[in-house]
């Protein structure tokens, strides 16, 4: 036991002390926050840009008085000469427009909008919708309809999409939020399993090519060396995640308090930037989707716990296989033929997650993939933001633990032989033979 602790300690310290570890640990949250800030500023920028000044030349006469100023647009009636107006426009400030309404506006329905720069789409839309309303009102009037009564017609409905939880309560469902989180988690766990698994493999290959392995296993059992390495590197992974979480939260707090002064504004800005980023996701009618509530509906504690459980389980399972591969080869280039098949079960749910899993998180494919040990780390994390019955999570976690015990046992039998085989190219058949060696 003392020896395995020594090994864990060496593996952990030698990696945590590396410059690259510090770099990754500090850069990733910075990058994340940086991207977030960039999105925010871009959104804010475009918001400011949309504010337009529109000078109106009203040849019809009755229109300009019906145009209303709002937060995006300011109208000003101009009586000066048209040519002068146009030349003013050339020297004018950004986003200054000249709206020319012809005398036959009601019949021709044509207007001209001249801009200092490229005509802004949202200004165009704003002007267009206001003018359409004016025409609509004019037509109502002509048909003798009472405009006020029409205004009072209200056909809006509100869909409260709720999901029924196990306890029978209905809670607000926020599918978009769940999807976003699912994708994020799936990416994070896939990348980290492959990265840390590869680190284990590299460590084994390093010991083998340095020829230190025989020196070490004359003091400890190969199994101890393998487990020490796996646990040590796993702890590096967890340290990294914990540091990321702490750093991100700290930076996020600093960022929002210094830039927005208060938290509500930050959240509003967050909501805005998030709804407007996907292009196709235009006005669904109700833009003030309650983001605070949406984020509150996500159980972050559950997510974090599940992430750590499935990361650890998946890591232990795969890193043992990576260790076996490392022991069987003499250098990293040779390792390729073996890493492909062992990462397949990770890759499959990762690829599927963009389609089948996310669209049908409770379908039979998703459910099975999230329970089978090899695919469960990725598949389960895709499903968890959508709410998974506790029994399934527990079953999957137990199967994962069982899975890693089996793979570790299997891998250690190959490992103990492989690390002492130099310059021998191992085939799959050879590996099976090693597996069957007695001690």
């Amino acid at each position, binding site marked *: 036991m003392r020896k395995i602790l020594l090994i864990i300690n060496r593996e952990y310290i*030698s990696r945590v002390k590396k410059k690259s570890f510090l770099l990754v640990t500090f850069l990733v949250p910075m990058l994340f926050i940086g991207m977030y800030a960039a999105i925010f500023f871009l959104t804010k920028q475009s918001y400011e840009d949309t504010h337009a000044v529109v000078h109106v030349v009203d040849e019809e006469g009755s229109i300009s008085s019906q145009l209303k100023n709002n937060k995006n647009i300011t109208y000003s009636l101009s009586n000066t000469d048209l040519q002068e107006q146009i030349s003013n426009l050339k020297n004018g400030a950004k986003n200054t427009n000249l709206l020319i309404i012809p005398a036959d506006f009601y019949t021709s329905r044509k207007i001209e909008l001249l801009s200092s720069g490229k005509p802004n789409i949202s200004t165009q839309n704003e002007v267009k919708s206001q003018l359409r309303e004016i025409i609509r009102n004019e037509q109502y009037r002509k048909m003798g309809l009472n405009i006020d009564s029409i205004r009072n017609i209200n056909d809006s409905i509100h869909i409260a999409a709720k999901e029924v939880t196990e306890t029978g309560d209905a809670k607000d469902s926020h599918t978009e939020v769940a999807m976003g989180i699912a994708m994020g988690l799936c990416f994070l766990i896939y990348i980290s399993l492959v990265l840390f698994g590869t680190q284990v493999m590299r460590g084994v290959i390093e010991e083998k090519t340095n020829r230190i392995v025989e*020196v070490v*296993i004359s*003091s400890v059992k190969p199994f101890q060396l393998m487990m020490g390495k796996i646990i040590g590197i796993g702890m590096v992974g967890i340290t990294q995640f914990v540091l990321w979480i702490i750093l991100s939260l700290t930076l996020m707090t600093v960022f929002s308090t210094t830039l927005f002064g208060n938290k509500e504004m930050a959240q509003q800005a967050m909501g805005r930037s998030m709804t407007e980023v996907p292009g196709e996701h235009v006005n669904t009618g109700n833009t003030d989707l309650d983001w605070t509530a949406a984020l509150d509906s996500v159980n972050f504690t559950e997510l974090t716990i599940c992430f750590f459980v499935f990361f650890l389980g998946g890591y232990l399972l795969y890193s043992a296989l990576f260790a076996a591969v490392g022991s069987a080869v003499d250098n990293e280039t040779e390792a390729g033929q073996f890493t492909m098949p062992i990462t397949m079960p990770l890759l499959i749910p990762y690829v599927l997650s963009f389609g089948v899993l996310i669209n049908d998180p409770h379908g039979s494919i998703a459910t099975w993939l999230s329970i089978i040990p090899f695919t469960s780390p990725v598949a389960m994390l895709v499903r968890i933001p959508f709410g998974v019955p506790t029994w399934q999570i527990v079953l999957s976690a137990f199967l994962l633990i069982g899975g890693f015990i089996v793979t570790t046992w299997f891998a250690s039998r190959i490992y103990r032989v492989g690390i002492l085989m130099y310059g021998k190219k191992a085939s799959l058949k050879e590996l099976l033979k090693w597996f069957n060696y007695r001690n």
Partner: protein
Amino acid sequence: MLDIRHIVKQYSHHRALDDVSLHVPKGSIFGLLGPNGAGKTSLIRIINQITAPDSGEIYFDGELLQPKHIERIGYLPEERGLYKKMKIGEQMLYLAQLKGLSKSDAVQRIRTWFEKLQIESWWDKKVEDLSKGMQQKVQFVATVVHEPDLIILDEPFSGFDPVNAQVIQEEILELNKKGATIIYSTHRMESVEELCDYIALINKSKKVLDGPVREIKRSYQNQQYVIEFKEQEGIVPSFIDTPLFEVIAEKNAIDNHEVTIRLQHDNSLNDILLYLIPQVQIHQVREVIPSMHDIFIANVTDPSTNKPTHHA
């Protein structure tokens, strides 16, 4: 120190060790010899409990070999190395602690060894900054730092220049004098004669020879002598035709002849001399003592010349 009994180790298609029994006396320097692939490394790995034999057992200092004995063994494998990116001092500490030393003991002993070999300044260096010979020196310290009772050295001198090889050889003898038993595996036969008290020769998975070096050599002294002589004037030597001995080799120069003979029929050297003195003028007579090299070659190349084994 070590009693190896009927060890068999079978890999799927070949038998690495076939009923090998050895006795390594306490305090000896024991040469473990054999051509490549004979099974030496398999045997050494079994002694180090890296692998287990299929049958047979090993007694360490009277007790059946157990995991606790690992701390009393120091092993310098033929395929050896160190962590390239780790500092020498930390690396030594790590390896010493793996052998069961406490941290403070380890620090103290490593310092003592480093002073002895005058490499104190290497503590904070990385392995990749050292030359191969320097690395070997460090590796040697790592092998013996926990003061093992049994030290197993597989080709310990490879990578050393003659000066450093001498330093290490003296350290080995010093450790042996202090009571450590040493198993020395090598292909360098001269050093075997210089260092070893006992040897065992393994060939094709089987032990073909073992015992004290002196006895083995004596058993290979098969009554051969080299006789240098000058012809006496007027006498034509006719000694070739004699039942007393058989001539194995002849070297003739103008005024000097050299023949290698083997005695036959229980004749003694005196009988031969009595026979020769009237015929030639004898300059020198010496007994042919086979070198370890010769014994090794004889055993490895032609199994039919195997001598019965001697048990110490």
